[in-house]
């Protein structure tokens, strides 16, 4: 499946003024590609992901999957949220099976899928526990298993490791790569961490501060697993950092201006 953003604008209309969050976004993501959206906070990268998820409407332009325009969530897409969004009142396996339950899959079949996927993410023995017993990294593994359960073709990950410590984060990055290679999903990955984007992606889409636009797309051909300390990867990191630096400064200035205006 090929994803195409065509001339996407997103405006948030407030009571007093409207904010242009995204403008003129054109991007094609090929089937099986791992693409990261990288940018300063408030650049609209999560908004763009939610538009593809069908959770938010675009103000202008359209999103195409193959030759169909999308306007709502669909069975071809699943989302992994930053703060896991697990249901505390469902067991781990209940959470993993939720998407299948929504699709009316019989209980026995659901259980089979959740058992397989929990084994894949290494949480078999936690199947009947409740989420509040799990660490952040484990919760995000459950959320990934829940997304994989519905066999989506496109996996949307919205700063999934933003709340995790460095070690857990690195573990989960490797796990995502393993899953990606195993299942050949198309992945759109939102992050504000440069090394994360460079470590994972086929292409890193760097966005500008508000209004979010695509500033540059950097293609990384290096073999995986990547060693970010190698000369080759260091050069890529430097390149990405250079492109992003201006935007981060501009984002900080914008934020300051907002605070001044608000006070």
């Amino acid at each position, binding site marked *: 499946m090929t994803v195409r953003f065509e001339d996407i604008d997103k405006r948030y209309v407030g009571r007093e003024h409207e904010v242009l969050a995204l403008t003129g976004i054109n991007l094609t993501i090929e089937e099986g590609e791992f693409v990261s959206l990288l940018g300063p906070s408030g650049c609209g990268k999560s908004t763009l992901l939610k538009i593809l*998820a*069908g*959770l938010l409407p675009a103000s202008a332009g359209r999103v195409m999957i193959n030759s169909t325009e999308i306007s709502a*969530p*669909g*069975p071809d*897409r*699943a*989302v992994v*949220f930053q*703060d896991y*969004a697990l*249901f*505390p*009142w*469902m067991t781990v396996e209940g959470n993993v099976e*939720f*998407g299948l*339950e*929504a*699709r009316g899959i019989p209980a026995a079949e659901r259980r089979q899928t959740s058992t397989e996927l929990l084994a894949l993410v290494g949480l078999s023995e936690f199947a009947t526990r*409740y*989420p*509040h*017993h799990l660490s952040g990294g484990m919760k995000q593994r459950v959320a990934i298993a829940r997304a994989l359960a*519905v066999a989506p073709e496109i996996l949307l990950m919205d700063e999934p490791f933003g709340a995790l410590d460095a070690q857990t984060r690195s573990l989960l990055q490797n796990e995502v790569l393993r899953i990606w290679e195993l299942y050949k999903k198309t992945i759109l990955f939102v992050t504000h961490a440069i090394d994360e984007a460079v470590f994972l992606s086929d292409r890193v889409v760097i966005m500008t501060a508000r209004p979010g636009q695509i500033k540059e797309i950097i293609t990384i051909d290096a073999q995986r697993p990547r060693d970010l300390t190698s000369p080759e990867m260091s050069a890529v990191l430097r390149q990405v950092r250079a492109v992003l630096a201006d935007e981060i400064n501009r984002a900080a200035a914008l934020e300051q201006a907002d605070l001044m205006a608000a006070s």
Partner: protein
Amino acid sequence: MTKVHPTPTDVAAFPRPRARQSRDLVSRETLLGMSTIVGLLIIWELVYRFELMPPWAFPSPVAVVVALYELALNGVLLENTMASVGRQLSGVILAALFGIPVGLWMGASPTARAAFLPLARMIYPIPGLAWVPLAILWFGVGFTSTVFVIFFTGIWPIIFNTMAGVQTLSGQYTEVARVYLAPRWLYTWRILIPGTLPFTITGLRLTYGVGWRVIVGAEMISSIVGLGFLIDDARWQLRPDIMIAGMVTIALIGWITEVQFFDWLESKTIDRWGMKAGVN
């Protein structure tokens, strides 16, 4: 939004044990609680001994225990307690059956809120007892009118709390439901109802408390059986020991219900889900 969280007085009526940090602390807390009760009994007995109050109006603790024992033996206590408990349960269950769906609906639909919230806010502050005369006119003296009054005064806390529960439910759960294309019934059943349960249980607790507060008054005015009737009837016999025995019975039933039902309900649900401390 209406303030419907338990007010300090509502919560303080039946304090629940906090998370058990250590055995030591729990036994210390229990000990303190027991000491206060024993202290009160001692002061009570002293007031009686030194005749600080006229003895015909102020019985000793022992007299109350004796009265309780006698009322238990001759079946009067059981008969009146069963009558009150029956009305109380009917009223509270009706209030829950009606109030929870209405609360879910008003929480989920801005239109429903706009339509019904102003009316609900106007009726809510009317004291339960104010409905009693009207209830007698409509339903006569006895079961139906009492249940009606409990229902009509008890339904508001559960509606308001359930509604608040829906409104504070994380929008992310809704997003997850949308992403996985959950149909409406599944969303209601698997997300809305369990997700609002911390609030719903608080509402139920309040409704239950309101029920007892109303029932005794209603039975004093409009009944020939029930704990309220027992207490009021003791006035004509100049039997303050029976009055207090009736009050003690209500206190015990309230305490048992808190521990045996509401705490149990929480331990099976929101405690187990880790949702008790903060509402996610």
